[in-house]
């Protein structure tokens, strides 16, 4: 669309000073010059573009004389947006045209005319003018392409620096693009190339692009997307694809502002974009929602001006990526919430808190159970030393599922044999016996009511331990001595603990001693 052009022109890339003067110059020029301008819009009119492009790719430099100040800004003020647009478009095309300058003059003229005509129609349904054929290089497709291209150029320029990241995204884009571009993929112009690519694929891309992005902005974005697609398809020109992919991102955000966001977003969107491109239908299905957003946003942006447009586009893209990311996270939070029993929290932070505690309690529970499993078959009195070690080792967070290994739970058996107390009591006794300073159960204490009965007993045990031994770092130490004890029975440290722990009757004392031992060990 024509309005696209203004945006492009308005791009804050270059400050366009005396637009009026330039305009005057342009108007002053004779038709042929104008044509020339048109033809060379890239160079003349689009001075800004050219200049920019010059910076990037000095392809255009040859053509443009002195119209340094014919920035895009001039164009809009000029009567008839089309002129500027034309120029803009022309510029794009001009850049391409430069190469075939000599040959394409008549061609260009036709092109210009056709462009002008098409320009009016902007984004006319891909009607690539025949010019493309003659123009081997720059596929001069209908103006809409140009506009798209311009936009695209804009993007590309902006995205040049983003190429690196674009490239990564490009491949993905390219795949889908392949089918898009067919007309003139050969466009080689570096900067233009992408554009030309875009142009080529315009018809297709534009369609998709259009679908993608609706309004003017959309055009650019679509162009970019299509462009990227085609570019990728045509030549795997990473730069282009990169840019395309960039643009392809929903908002076709010129990465300038939201580079990072785009990057992250690109990683996601490119595949998504590819999928979209691959399946037009899919695109149509997906794009509508996005299109609506883009269109409205783009429309707004266009009215605000190019600079704000760019930023808003970038912000748009960023917002989209952010939204996707948030959706993913919310989805996972919901899944987590389902796993946690009796979780009635809707707040993220509290839910995460509960998840953490539940996870700890679950780990503890598993440890206890595995310990119990190991204990039962190993029941035999006398081996009192093991108990504290086993329990101690199992309880540490770091221990994870070590208890699951069914170490000889002698201590367990010991305790059991020694005392015929009721379950709770036994648990209580067992608790103090365990030199488990590293009890994360402590954190669970406040959650007892919430956890219900499930972990009460274990918690009870742990609580007692926890209170006695707040020092969690001792856990690993227990493990080592335990192992040594098992193997060589030469660890006196565990023995001391065991002795302290072993006696059921002196369980309390043992527990008190246990921690002391542990601490002394430490």
């Amino acid at each position, binding site marked *: 669309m024509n309005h696209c052009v203004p945006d492009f022109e308005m791009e804050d890339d270059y400050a366009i000073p005396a637009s009026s003067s330039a305009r005057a110059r342009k108007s002053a020029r004779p038709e042929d010059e104008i044509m020339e301008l048109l033809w060379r819009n890239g160079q003349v009119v689009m001075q800004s573009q050219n200049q920019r492009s010059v910076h990037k790719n000095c392809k255009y430099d040859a053509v443009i004389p002195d119209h340094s100040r014919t920035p895009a800004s001039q164009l809009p003020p000029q009567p008839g947006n089309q002129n500027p647009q034309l120029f803009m478009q022309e510029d794009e095309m001009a850049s391409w045209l430069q190469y075939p300058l000599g040959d394409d003059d008549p061609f260009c003229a036709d092109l210009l005319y056709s462009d002008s005509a098409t320009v009016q129609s902007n984004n006319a349904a891909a009607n690539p003018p025949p010019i493309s054929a003659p123009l081997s290089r720059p596929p001069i497709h209908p103006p809409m392409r140009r506009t798209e291209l311009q936009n695209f150029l804009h993007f590309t320029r902006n995205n040049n620096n983003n190429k690196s990241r674009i490239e990564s995204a490009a491949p993905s884009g390219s795949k889908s693009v392949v089918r898009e571009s067919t007309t003139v993929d050969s466009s080689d112009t570096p900067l233009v190339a992408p554009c030309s690519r875009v142009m080529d694929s315009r018809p297709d891309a534009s369609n998709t692009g259009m679908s993608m992005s609706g309004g003017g902005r959309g055009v650019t974005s679509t162009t970019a997307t299509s462009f990227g697609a085609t570019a990728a398809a045509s030549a795997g020109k990473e730069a282009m694809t990169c840019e395309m992919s960039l643009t392809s991102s929903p908002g076709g955000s010129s990465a300038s502002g939201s580079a990072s966001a785009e990057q992250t977003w690109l990683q996601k969107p490119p595949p998504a974009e590819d999928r979209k491109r691959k399946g037009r239908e899919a695109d149509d299905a997906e794009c509508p929602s996005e299109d609506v957003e883009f269109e409205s946003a783009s429309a707004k942006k266009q009215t605000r001006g190019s600079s704000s447009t760019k930023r808003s586009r970038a912000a748009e893209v960023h917002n989209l990526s952010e939204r996707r990311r948030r959706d993913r996270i919310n989805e996972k939070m919901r899944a987590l919430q389902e796993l946690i029993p009796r979780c009635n929290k809707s707040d993220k932070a509290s839910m995460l808190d509960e998840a953490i505690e539940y996870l700890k309690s679950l780990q503890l529970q598993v440890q206890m159970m595995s310990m119990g499993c190991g204990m039962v078959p190993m029941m035999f009195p006398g081996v009192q030393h093991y108990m504290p070690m086993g329990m101690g080792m199992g309880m540490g967070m770091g221990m994870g599922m070590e208890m699951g290994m069914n170490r000889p739970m002698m201590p367990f058996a010991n305790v059991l044999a020694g005392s015929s107390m009721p379950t709770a009591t036994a648990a209580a006794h067992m608790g103090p016996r365990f030199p488990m300073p590293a009890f994360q159960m402590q954190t669970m204490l406040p959650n007892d009511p919430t956890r219900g009965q499930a972990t009460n007993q*274990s918690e009870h045990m742990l609580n007692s331990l926890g209170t006695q031994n707040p020092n969690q770092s001792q856990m690993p130490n227990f493990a080592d001595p335990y192992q040594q004890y098992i193997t060589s029975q030469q660890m006196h440290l565990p023995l001391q603990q065991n002795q302290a722990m072993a006696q059921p009757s002196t369980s309390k004392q043992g527990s008190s001693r246990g921690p002391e031992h542990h601490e002394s060990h430490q």
Partner: protein
Amino acid sequence: MSSRRSRQSSGSPSIKDDQIIELVSKLRQLVPEMRDRRSDKVSASKVLQETCSYIRNLHREVDDLSERLSQLLATIDADSAEAAIIRSLIMQ
């Protein structure tokens, strides 16, 4: 959340974000396979995902262990202390 700029750091969101970041890191510490990974590079969604799978694994383990304990319970004297312990474990 952010309209224009990437991030609008207002008062409340930043507080909550910090909280959440901390919780996510805590969660990461709990999940064994994510404990030693390089930090700050794992996205929250990945942490949540790993946590969910880990919790499911733990559930499965608890079920297996409960079953085993039940079997053990059947083999031992129901009045013994071990039985009591086992029952307590299963009841959890």
